[in-house]
């Protein structure tokens, strides 16, 4: 499956990465070589093999729905680029 410029552009948008046209060209080259390596997988017969999602085949453990964390909003928000009244500030979304 040859990688096109439009695939890289689409992935960059989905991943919210700003890339220039020159960068996109370079990523087409790099990612194409990665996919050439990855395409070896297609030669293996995996008929009837179940995907392995967890190396120990474990399933998600559940716990009681108890409150265990304390409120550390102020501590955490000190890390944020911009906050006001306990809220994170971003550019206006709704005019």
């Amino acid at each position, binding site marked *: 499956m040859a*990688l096109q410029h439009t695939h890289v552009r689409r992935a960059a948008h989905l991943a919210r990465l700003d890339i220039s046209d020159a960068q996109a060209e370079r990523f087409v080259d790099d*990612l194409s070589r990665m996919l050439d390596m990855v395409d070896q997988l297609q030669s293996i017969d995996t008929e009837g093999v179940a995907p392995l999602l967890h190396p120990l085949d474990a399933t998600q453990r559940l716990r009681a729905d108890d409150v265990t964390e304390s409120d550390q909003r102020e501590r955490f928000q000190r890390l944020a680029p911009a906050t006001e009244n306990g809220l994170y500030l971003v550019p206006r979304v709704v005019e």
Partner: protein
Amino acid sequence: MSDHTADPFAPTVTSLAAALKRGDVSSRELATDCLKRIERAEPALNSFISVTAEQALAAADAADRARADGRAGFLTGVPLAFKDIFCTRDVKTSCGSKMLDNFIAPYSATAVQKLDAAGCVSLGKTNMDEFAMGSSNESSYYGAVKNPWDLTAVPGGSSGGSAAAVAAGLVPATLGTDTGGSIRQPAAFCGITGLKPTYGRISRYGIIAYASSLDQAGPMARTAEDCAHLLGAIAGHDPRDSTSAPHAVPDYAAELDAPLTGLKIGLPREYFGDGLDPAAAHAVNEAVKVYESLGATVRDVSLPHTRYATSAYYVIAPAEASSNLARFDGVRFGHRCDSPEDLIDLYKRSRAEGFGEEVKRRILIGTHTLSEGFFDAYYIKAQKVRRLIRQDFLDAFDQVDVLMGPTSPTPAFDLGAQKDPVSMYLQDIYTIAVNLAGIPGISVPAGFSGARPVGLQILGAHFSEARLLNVAHRFQQATDWHRQRPAFAKEIV
């Protein structure tokens, strides 16, 4: 520095713990000595991103007081350092990235908390490939780390700063993380001992995630004995990591001396193929002879899907990374671009400015393989092959107790030598399948190729860390490769 150890150039955790217990040295003296070594070494080595001198001396004084009060444990007062992927409360935790250059962790990882509670003294945070993506430590925002055996060589990656710091004798031990070989390969390149435990053996809470189904923390030190003490202190279930294993934690140090009579060693023939450095192959063969002299038997085994491991890994790891790294959005923490036009512009430019090339490559390939129209062909296919790769190991461990081979096909390569990302990925051929299968592996020094160290990798079944450490320790009782020191370590003392 007082003469409290047999090897002043690179003391071990075990020797320092004994010296502290005897009262030959104080924790403050040890921390001060480490800080001096770091100061002398760092202009050349670049193995640390942050050195936390003030906090280290305060922790050392607390450790000395605990000892005076009779509250000291085995590790109380022992100096060490953490790869900069571990969150450390009130200390910058950058993950080697511009994205987190301004990030002061508001809490500590569980592994860090456990070593703090044991009285260990952290000297700071070690350099690493950005977001642990790399095999040479050249992708760090903070610059490449040099290998203390040869300053023109890479230390390996991604835990390259951790390995170089131990090899140079700056600290006796560090914690690293291993997603595709990032503890074992730098350990091999720098001539130290590095253990990647079973997936889930150590809590991942507070470790910045790269690929969550592969990531695992582990100790990096000079000896298997040191690794046993550190693993015992940090292993175990953690309610804050639902993937941490509920299995009981054995006394790893107590089992180190068990005899190896009757040990069945398998040599995977796929690990001795084309591209293997002759000196690395020779070192492994010589190591196997040592094991035979200790009573082990040896046979060939096959791991037939080995050559597909790198392909499966470079679908699964970037896919998980693209999801994990979505959290770096310029809103709640980390880098934010100047004057964003709107929310999408804020996301896109903050991420474009904050991430380096290798991280972007992996985010893009991961996003692409997970996207509509490609998901089944890449991601699901890779997960099926992952099961076949794991089954190879399970079948092998029906026949033998441990597998042995080289950690890496070559010794450390020159800085700047690997220009093509894919050829660098293929270097991880012997380590990557281990993470896909979730089994533990350890790299121990086993010789040299020219002036550069080579490692022996020993692999075991899930949760066989006690056996691996025992097997590695007995080798280190019979050989002295782990006692070799680079000239650099002597120059800075």
